[in-house]
């Protein structure tokens, strides 16, 4: 064998070793980042099986306990086939309908109970109001004020449990986002979308901060301020404060909308750009592997396409599972908000009929507050849904 040939063979062998090492390091990096003991590419009976990341199996820890029985069996399995079947069952028409009807069935009796209690309270308010007006003079006015005070206190305590429900929703949504963050990162890195993983993670962290510090903390405070203004109005303050309350509510929801729009726009634009950059980089790598390694190079390049298809499947399963979980979290809160809003609106109509104008105004203000809370809850869910849609729709850079 001539020296020149030996040099060529040695050069090719070294190149092969280098490429193999680089590819191994590429796939091993995200696995080490997650958990050194768990493997995304499990070897079972000398057959390579692509599995979902371990962070996906840990998602139930981030979910409220009452949600777990509603989920299909095998949803959090690391076996993609099993998880896909469960996701398919969850997003089927019957699954969605049963979730909606279940949430409706749970919340409807509560709304009816609230309506009947409010109407009972309004009847008492009307009766006592008429009794106090028979006293006459300033003492009668004062008694009327005490009656209004008692009725307002009861109305407020009856309708305010919802603020806690909304705060709990924001906390749960934050936990779900935090749970999905490593899953999305791992799947992006596995598909070769390194830039996208960084961009997506950064934006999700900003979103988590918005959730934690803006929504969960500020929403009850905004509700409190608006409610205090409505109470002042209901108790007979000379200057109407409803315009100020309405301005605060509109500004807050507008601000939330702006933040969601900004984050969504940045996510959309950055995702497109980073997907293109990652795709170009991976095509360069594939070209180099395919051409520099005569036989093995072609095989590696071809198998990358298969891996990419597998990773796209995993992304689909994880993304749709995330949307399903978000839907199951959002649905009860949204249905409760909307049903209670209708119940309070009906009670306001009843109050107007019973000549309790101040109670009617207070109830209308509370109903409006419920509407704004429903808007805030929906707005905050939009960004998370968009991030998951990007995960599902964005093709793997390996492919």
């Amino acid at each position: 064998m001539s020296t020149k040939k030996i040099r060529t063979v040695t050069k090719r062998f070294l190149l092969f070793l280098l490429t193999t090492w680089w590819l191994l390091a590429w796939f091993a990096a995200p696995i080490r980042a997650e958990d050194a003991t768990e493997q995304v590419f499990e070897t079972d009976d000398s057959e390579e099986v692509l599995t979902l990341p371990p962070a996906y199996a840990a998602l139930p820890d981030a979910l409220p306990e009452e949600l777990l029985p509603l989920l299909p069996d095998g949803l959090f399995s690391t076996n993609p086939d099993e998880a896909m079947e469960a996701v398919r069952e969850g997003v089927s028409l019957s699954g969605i309908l049963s979730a909606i009807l279940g949430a409706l069935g749970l919340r409807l009796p509560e709304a009816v109970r609230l309506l009947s209690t409010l109407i009972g309270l309004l009847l008492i308010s009307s009766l006592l109001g008429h009794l106090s007006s028979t006293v006459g003079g300033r003492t009668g006015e004062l008694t009327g004020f005490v009656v209004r005070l008692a009725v307002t206190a009861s109305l407020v305590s009856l309708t305010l449990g919802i603020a806690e429900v909304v705060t709990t929703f924001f906390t749960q949504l934050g936990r779900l986002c935090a749970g999905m963050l490593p899953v999305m990162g791992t799947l992006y890195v596995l598909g070769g979308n390194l830039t996208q993983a960084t961009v997506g993670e950064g934006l999700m962290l900003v979103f988590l901060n918005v959730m934690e510090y803006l929504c969960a903390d500020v929403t009850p405070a905004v509700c409190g301020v608006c409610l205090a203004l409505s109470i002042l109005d209901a108790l007979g303050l000379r200057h109407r404060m409803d315009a100020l309350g309405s301005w605060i509510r509109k500004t807050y929801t507008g601000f939330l909308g702006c933040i969601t729009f900004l984050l969504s726009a940045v996510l959309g634009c950055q995702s497109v750009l980073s997907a293109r950059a990652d795709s170009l980089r991976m095509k360069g790598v594939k070209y180099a592997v395919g051409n520099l390694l005569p036989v093995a190079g072609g095989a590696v390049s071809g198998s990358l396409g298969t891996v990419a298809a597998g990773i796209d499947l995993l992304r689909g399963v994880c993304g749709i599972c995330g949307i399903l979980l978000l839907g199951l979290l959002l649905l009860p809160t949204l249905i409760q908000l909307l049903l209670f809003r209708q119940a309070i609106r009906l009670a306001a109509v009843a109050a107007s009929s019973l000549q309790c104008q101040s109670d009617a105004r207070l109830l209308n203000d509370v109903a409006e507050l419920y509407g704004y809370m429903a808007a805030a809850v929906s707005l905050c869910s939009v960004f998370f849904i968009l991030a998951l849609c990007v995960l599902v729709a964005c093709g793997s850079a390996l492919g």
Partner: protein
Amino acid sequence: MGAILSLAAGVLSDVMTLINSCFGTGVLPEDMRSILLRSLGLAFATELCAGVCRDSGEAALAAWVETAGRLEILVLAMPLIRTIADTVANLLGAGT
């Protein structure tokens, strides 16, 4: 006067029975029920006393009776004001 009072007491007793049956449904908490009934009773008693004083030519005394009655009603209403203030304060501090 006695006849009017006994007649009024009979009517008021019926009204109180009705109010009690309404409160019995649990719509209003017990403490609020007590405050409301006491303030209503106080208002009627104050107006009655003030009226008797005026009829007797004691206008100054009638004014004092009314003032005392109003003060008593305000003191009775204090827990209600505190309940509302606490609810709003809890709501404002719920997120922190």
